[in-house]
Each structure stands twice: as C-alpha cells, then as structure tokens.
C-alpha cells in the first residue's frame, strides 16, 4: 500500500515535467515557422485618433534626473490635457534594475506604453530583434526629423528595416575632466594623445598625484572605449563593430596594451569607488584627470557648484579630438500598447525642439537635434553641442549604442579577466570569442 502511494506520488511529480517538456518543444516548432512568415515590418500609424486615457511611461529617471523627466511630462500634459501620465520609474543607475523589470513585463504580455532605452544596439539587439517594436520611419518623415537629427545618429539608432526609437538627449562619452588651476600648480598641460599622457603621468606621479582617477567596474569599460577610439581612430573603431576589423588584429591588441599601461597610473582602490567618487578625487586635487561621460559636468555644476571653464575644465579624451562618442536615451513604440494615440503624442513630444530644450538643460545633456536653442544651456553644453554638430559621431559600447546586451555583459566579464591577469593577447582573444558568440563578427 505504502509502496503504491510512493509510486503514484512520483508519477504525479514527473507528469508536469513531461508536459512542460512537450509544451516547450511544441513552442519551438511553431516559432520556427512563424519566423519565415514575418518578413515585413509593422510600422507606426500616424492616425490613432485623439489622445486620451492613461499613458504609462517606464524609465529609470529617479533622484537627480527626476526633475528633467517631470518637466517633459508637464509639457506633454499642457499639450494633451486629456491624458493622465503614469510615471513608472525603477531606480538604479544606467537602468540595471529597470531593464530586468521591463523584460519580465514584456514577457508577461504587459508592455508599458513607452519605455526608456539606450538608443542603438541595446534596443535593436534585444527588442527589435524580438520583433516587439514598431518602425518609426513614418513619424520621422512627417515630423521632419530626418533633417534635424544628424545622419550619423539616425544610422546608429536604425537598421535597414527602420528607425526604432526617438532620442531625447545626447551625452558625450569621450571627455577628460580636470581642474585648470590644479594643472597650472603641477605645471602640466592637457595631453592630446596617450603618449603625451604617459609623459605627463610620470611628472604627476613624481609630485605624488594620481594621474588618472578610475572607479567601479563599468567605468573601466567606459575608459576602454575612449582608449579604443584614441588608439584606433573613428574609422577602425566603427570597423570593430561592423565586423570588418578583427578583435585579434594587431591594432585591437594595441588597445588592450595601452589600457594596461594606463592602469598603472590609476588609483589602486578603483573597484570600490562610485563614478562620483572618482570625480571627487579630481575636484579634491588627489588626481589630475578623469575620463567620464558628460553627466560628470552635471554633477560638478549642480551638486558641487563649480563653474564650467574655471571650476572644472574638459577636453576630448587623448587622441579623440574631432570625434564625438555619443550615447542617448530614447523612447520607442512597443507593439500591442494599450493607448497608441497617447504614445504617439508622447514620442512627438520627446522629439520636438521644445521638448528637448525643456528636458536637456535640467538633465545636463544636450539636445539630439541640431537646431536647439543654445541660450538655454550652460557653457559646457554649448561646447558639446557645437562638437556634436560638426564632429564625426561614433557610438558608445559601455552605454549600449554599438553592441547588444549579450556582448556588453560578456565584455564586462572579459574586462574582469583582464584586470586580474593584465594579458592583452588573452583579452583580445576572449573579446573575439564573445564577438562571435553574440553575432558581431561572423565566424
């Protein structure tokens, strides 16, 4: 009797496993046939009727960045008084937590009406590849955005099948920060190439100053992309991402070797610091330079109350003068949203000149349009906007423009390995392996 019961229980336990197994296999079969059928891309329609009801905006803009988002929402409410905006934020820098929440919501069939996403491959490699976004080309054409967004930018946020999101801001990644008075005191100039940097670094170390301050893991990836752009130049940097330049080529190994040398001139405790603490080292005079995106300008101007130009200075990171490595936050149009009319109005608001010039001065970024009203921005932003208009534009790796999320995550692991053994050859080989695995380089 007892044995029979045990047997029955075991069988009962196994039953769901078997059904799930079978169900899973069936799923695979269906999807395979569907894939070949869906060749045409659904586009956004320009007429969904009047916007009303509720609009849920999903983002990670809380804390310091909340005022900028709120200003953008206020502007939207002025134009669309019928719509009630639900501001759904999930805190966590760079969206580390928000992205996971978004994935579970999308998988569960409950997409927000529009969500914040880093423009470029972070959106394309995950959500466009999953066929969950609408092509926005008609919207770009009807709003005249094709002419006001730089062509380089449109190329990077689109694929041959369409344009996938509306950028609301532009940040620059390849900026080197310093305090002009301190440099005078130490008697050094801003280096324009990494070779110059190494000379300056020796001088600084002899005076007991850390040449370059660095922070937690992702800032090393951030440094890597600036080094790569400096060592390779814009053309070869782009070639890395479209698979034309091998990750194991001599030039690519050179990037790692340069990074290896640079790391000798950084603070030892970097993995334990936040990026703000690395900026503090420069402001406090313990370190000379820091390479960070231009949200550091916002931090220094707003939080630390420093005057751009005199309180802190900036230059393109060594060897990258004339190139603008960008990243942008953007909003897309997911398939199957509850309120398409309100979503369309939201995207129009995000891309409009007024919307961008309301949002960006508060956020500390610049407008992604070339026709923005510069009088609303501070001195740093004016200089960045000028560079954005006439520099060569390339995409950032650490912030989701050039590579999909799989590569970004694996690259962080490769970087950890490199920091442990500091072997450029091995890092280059590992980078090639993950580039193949994540479809950046074909075999």
């Amino acid at each position: 009797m007892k044995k029979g019961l045990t047997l029955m229980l075991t069988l009962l336990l196994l039953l769901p496993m078997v059904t799930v197994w079978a169900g899973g296999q069936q799923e695979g079969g269906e999807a395979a046939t569907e894939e070949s059928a869906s060749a045409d891309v659904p586009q956004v329609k320009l007429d969904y009727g009047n916007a009303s009801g509720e609009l849920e905006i999903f983002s990670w803009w809380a804390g310091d960045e909340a005022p900028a988002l709120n200003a953008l929402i206020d502007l939207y409410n002025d134009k669309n008084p019928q719509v009630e905006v639900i501001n759904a934020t999930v805190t966590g820098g760079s969206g580390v937590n928000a992205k996971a929440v978004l994935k579970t919501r999308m998988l569960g069939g409950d997409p927000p009406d529009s969500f914040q996403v880093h423009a470029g491959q972070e959106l394309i490699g995950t959500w466009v590849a999953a066929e969950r976004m609408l092509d926005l080309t008609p919207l770009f054409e009807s709003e005249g955005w094709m002419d006001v967004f730089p062509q380089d930018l449109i190329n990077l946020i689109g694929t041959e099948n369409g344009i996938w999101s509306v950028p609301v801001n532009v940040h620059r990644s390849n900026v080197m920060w310093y305090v002009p008075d301190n440099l005078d005191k130490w008697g050094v100039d801003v280096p324009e190439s990494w070779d110059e940097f190494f000379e300056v670094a020796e001088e600084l170390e002899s005076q007991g100053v850390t040449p370059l301050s660095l922070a937690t893991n992702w800032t090393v990836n951030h440094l890597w992309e600036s080094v790569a752009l400096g060592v390779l130049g814009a053309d070869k940097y782009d070639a890395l991402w479209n698979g034309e330049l091998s990750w194991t080529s001599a030039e690519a190994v050179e990037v790692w070797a340069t990074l290896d040398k640079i790391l000798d001139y950084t603070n030892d405790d970097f993995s334990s610091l936040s990026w703000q603490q690395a900026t503090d080292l420069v402001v406090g005079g313990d370190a000379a330079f820091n390479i960070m995106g231009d949200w550091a300008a916002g931090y220094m101007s707003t939080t630390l109350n420093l005057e751009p130009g005199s309180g802190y200075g900036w230059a393109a990171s060594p060897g990258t003068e004339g190139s603008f490595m960008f990243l942008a936050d953007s909003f897309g149009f997911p398939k199957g949203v509850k309120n398409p009319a309100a979503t369309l109005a939201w995207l129009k608001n995000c891309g409009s000149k007024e919307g961008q010039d309301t949002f960006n001065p508060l956020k500390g970024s610049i407008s992604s349009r070339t026709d923005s009203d510069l009088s609303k921005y501070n001195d740093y932003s004016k200089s960045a906007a000028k560079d954005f208009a006439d520099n060569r534009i390339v995409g950032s790796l650490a912030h989701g423009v050039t590579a999909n999320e799989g590569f970004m995550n694996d690259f962080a692991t490769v970087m950890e390995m490199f920091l442990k053994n500091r072997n450029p050859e091995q890092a280059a080989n590992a980078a090639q392996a993950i580039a193949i695995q994540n479809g950046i380089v074909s075999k």
Partner: protein
Amino acid sequence: MVESKKNAVYSILVLLPSVILLLIFVYGFIGNSFYVSLTDWGTGAALRENPVKNFVGLKNYRELFTGAINARFRQDLINAVFYSLFLVVGTLTVGLFLAILLDKGPKGEHVLRTIFLFPMALSFIVTGTIWRWVFSPKGGVNLIPTWFGMERGKFLWLSSREQVLLFNWQNILQIIALILFVIFALVLYSGWKNKKRTQITWGAVLSGVMLFYALVLHNILPPILPYEESHGFSLATIGIIIAAVWQYSGYTMALYLAGLRGLPVAMYESAKMDGAGDLTYYFKIAIPNMWPITLSAIIIISHISLKLFALIFSMAGADNASTGHPSVLMYLVTFRANNFAIGAAISVILFLMAALFIIPYLIQSYRARR
C-alpha cells in the same frame, strides 16, 4: 474501517490543492528550467513572443565547465564552495562559543540573547549596505590602525584581486577524486573498527576507484581544458564571509543554546562528580550529544550560503567578479545578457548543489524514523 476511509478521502481532498500548486509552481518550473537549460534559448531574438528554442542536449553545461569565455562561472563555483565552507565553520564556531557563554547564565542573559539574534532579523540588503561602509577602502576597519598611530590599512576588503590556494582547473577532477578518496577511506576505517562487512566492501571499492582515477586515469585521459587556468580562494570574499557570519552566528547560537538547555541536568552534575571541568564537559559530553543540532545547523547554513545573492549584490555589486557567486552570475546572464538557456543551466547546477546538502539529511531522517 468506514470511518478511516472517510478520513482518508478528507485528508486527500484537503491536501490536493496545495499538492497541485506545488506540482505546477515548484516541480513543474524546476522541470521547465531543466528543459530550458538543454536548449539554445537566448541566442539572437530571445525575447520574441514565441522564441525559437532548439534542443542542444548538454552543450550549455559543457560550455560552462570547459568553455573559454565561462572562466567566471568556474571561479564563481569555487567561490561558492568556499563561501559555504567558511560560513558553516564560522557560524558554528562563533554560535557555539556564544551559546556556551550564555549557558553559564551571565547577568543580562536575555538582553544579550536578543542582541546576538538581532542581526538575523535584518535583510541582507541592510546588512550589506552597512558592511560595505565598514569595508570601504579608505574608511571603516582600514582606519583602525590609525587609532594607534599606525598607517591606514591598505587591504581592499571587497575588491582585492588577489587569490590564494591556487590550483589549475585542468586538475579539478583529480582534486575532487582525492577528497572523495579521503572520505571513503574514513568510511572504510570506521567500518573496519565497527566490523561492518558491507561498509568495508563499499569503502574499499569506492576509495580504490577514486585513488585509481587520481593517480592513473587522470594522467591518461585528455585534459578537460586545452590550456591551464588558475582558480583559487579570492581574498575579496573574506569581507562577505565576515558579514554573513556576523549575521547568522546568532541563529546558530540560539540553536545551540536550546540544545545545551535541553541536555539533562543530571548529565552535567554527574560529569562534575567525576571531576570533569567545564572544558571537558562541553567538548567531550555536550557537543557530541548535540550532534543532531549541529547537523541541522550545517544544512540550514549551507542553504543560506547558496542564497548569498542579496548580500553580495549590495556589498560588492554584481559585476565584481572576485566576490562572484553562481546566483549573481545567473542573474547577469539571464536578465542582462538575455542568455536564458545558460542562465537556466547555472540555476540547475545551483539546484543540484542544494540537493547535495539536503539529500543526505533526508535519507538520514528517513532512516531514523524507520
């Protein structure tokens, strides 16, 4: 007879809903995770409405243990072993020590008991945040030497990349075989001492097989990795271990204190009569008599050690590979890199590790009941 049948029907009816829910939401999903781990879900368009999942067999597992780009998983696995080991040893020792102190009935025992138990009531996120401050490189414990006029401590508690006890991953199977050899040899020894024939046979056969593998087979078979890869005990994990031991010693203290109080007073008195000191009483009499408590403490603590995710996440961050743990890696691989199949494979391995701790316990308690 009729009455008991009625009872049986009722009990089945009452149990059925929870059994069905368990079957679906626990065992069904474990089964589904296992199935996903055998597919290639995650390459390309992982988040499609109907994702393409091709059956690839055990490829993901092979990749994790021998693939060139999964070195982090292997280090995390080693870390997990050390986390479990040090957490169990640490909490048992500290907890036992505290329990013995409290057993002597000092003044204010109630207050102390609450204080020691209190950390367990906090969530890992809270303790993690506090301990991150304690272990920050330019503050916290590193400042203690300055109180005595010495230079500030330089150790990077959570971000050191130093490792000790280095070994080559190519030799991992040999090392495991040697450890198993020692265990089976002990089984053989105790069988020989107690004159149990089946135990002697099994001990001899298994320890022989392990020794044969370690000394002969391992050198003949091709290596599991084409190149040398060193792993070891990351010094950065010490900070995490200290925080976890701090949090859970109170718990083992409570277990042991209950155990000590549960021992008959006569045992203590007769030991005293025979002239045993406190040390002899606790180490020779009390601890051996509390073996069931030690065993359940080991099992509970080793399960907690597999759930260190939140503590590591809040203390060192998810990207910090030197303090990594398979559960953290599983989160990164699944939710950041969209590699659902590899993530599922890691979670199945974690599940098996948990089973490794609990199955011997289940077998033992089943036997005890018979």
